[in-house]
């Protein structure tokens, strides 16, 4: 995108019918480190790639619990994201106070979208520079929404935002059709694999990703939105890597058997 004469403020349309300030805000989301969300019928998982400003500092907090039944992962201007998380928490608490029930996720996403839209139509404001993946559980099941700075929001089965998110999206596109029936464990593994795609070669460890899950078990009890602790995340990563290695190990004994049958290529020591 290049500078042009219609991009000075958010209340100026371009002749092509675009609001450039809003589009620039969406660029800010693309610069943030990656976040991934995916859901089954009963569970929703959020994963975020942690970026630290330097080795000396802690990494930015990108996943926030909004209520027992919902949470967000954000990419972009984290400060804007924190403010929006506070707003979401306030909306959920107010609803729970009046109705003694959790705010349905679609209605939460709508309130967030309406708040974002206001900033695209006031000359004295700027759009929020953060994209949020809103994951939650209500009586119609688990949901995942993506709210962007333009005030648009969509429901997704799986989605990725932030830098190098296209790699994660490609991975998710291959597999999302089966997600409805995935177990929570499978969802977690796919979320981690998707985040791994965005790391481009860097090793996936529990210190460069955050994982959170919310859902309802088969017996009806709710598993509230919770960050999975680093130790458990590392265990899952380790078991995923072990599972990748075992097909290779399984191949070895069978190749020694085939040696005797003769027609295959000679063993490697020649």
């Amino acid at each position, binding site marked *: 995108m290049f500078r042009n004469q219609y991009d000075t403020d958010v209340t100026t349309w371009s002749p092509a019918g675009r609001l450039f300030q809003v589009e620039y805000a969406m660029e800010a989301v693309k610069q943030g480190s990656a976040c991934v969300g995916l859901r089954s019928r009963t569970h929703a998982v959020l994963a975020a790639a942690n970026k630290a400003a330097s080795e000396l500092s802690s990494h930015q907090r990108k996943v926030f619990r909004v209520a027992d039944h919902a949470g967000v992962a954000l990419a972009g201007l984290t400060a804007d994201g924190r403010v929006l998380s506070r707003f979401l928490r306030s909306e959920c608490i107010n609803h729970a106070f*009046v*109705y*003694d029930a959790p705010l349905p996720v*679609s209605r939460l996403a709508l309130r967030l979208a309406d708040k974002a839209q206001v900033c695209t139509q006031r000359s004295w404001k700027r759009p929020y520079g953060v994209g949020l993946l809103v994951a939650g559980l209500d*009586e*119609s099941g688990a949901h995942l929404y993506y709210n962007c700075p333009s005030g648009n929001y969509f429901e997704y089965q799986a989605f990725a935002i932030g830098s190098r998110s296209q790699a994660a999206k490609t991975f998710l596109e291959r597999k999302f059709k089966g997600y409805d029936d995935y177990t929570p464990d499978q969802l977690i593994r796919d979320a981690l694999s998707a985040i791994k795609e965005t790391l481009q070669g860097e090793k996936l460890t529990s210190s460069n990703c955050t994982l959170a899950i919310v859902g309802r078990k088969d017996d*009806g009890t709710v598993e509230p939105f919770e960050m999975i602790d680093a130790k458990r995340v590392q265990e899952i990563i380790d078991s995923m890597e072990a599972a990748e290695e075992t097909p290779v190990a399984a191949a070895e004994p069978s190749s020694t058997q085939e040696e005797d049958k003769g027609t295959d290529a000679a063993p490697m020591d020649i």
Partner: protein
Amino acid sequence: MAWQQPMDGSHASGSKVAAADGPGTQRTQYPYVTGTSVIALKYKDGVIMACDTGASYGSTLRYKSVERIKAVGKHSLIGASGEFSDFQEILRYLDELTLSDHMWDDGNSLGPKEVHSYLTRVMYNRRNKFDPLWNSLVLGGVKKGPKGEEKYLGMVNMIGTHFEENHIATGFGNHLAIPILRAEWCEDMTFEEAVKLVEKCLLVLLYRDRSSINKFQIAKITTEGATIYPPYSLKTHWGFAAFENPSKGAVGSW
């Protein structure tokens, strides 16, 4: 109400001037047109609620075909005793609530617990402004939760006192019907058993509550929805010896 009404139900917060008693304003002192008891109990398929169809104007039994039980959304019934105009106002708030809930069309719907909680907030807020909605409301319903069908029955009154129970009664019903319900209610009654128990209470109220009339409506709410049955009367017995020749042996002035 002439001022702008925000969507979150805060418009139900009533008269702005209630806090400051300026000239020409008054705090709510007493109700005018009132309904008497409502009784309700949980049974096997859901909740059953009953009351008479009368509304009194002081000691006059003024209106005789008044429906004091209404359906709310898909899952609940509300019954009210007390000031009838306040009940009508509450029905309008609930209408707005359920309509916007329905228009969402997103697989979520307001259950009896949510409606009860909302009403509690409204009633308590009004009481704090010394401008109460002069009612005792009974809220019953059934909703499929993640753990199966969940029956709900609760009440909230004009000062915001609220609770849930297996059987509820308002007004005179508290004194006359609750003892019967406590003795004879049991879990999972059939509809017929529940109606019999309800009619027993209604009969006592008819005999002993001077503001009740012999025209009743029974309503039930199950997972299939709400049914409000047409009004009917109960058989009463007045053939007591003391009622024969009531003036026999009475001292007269002529």
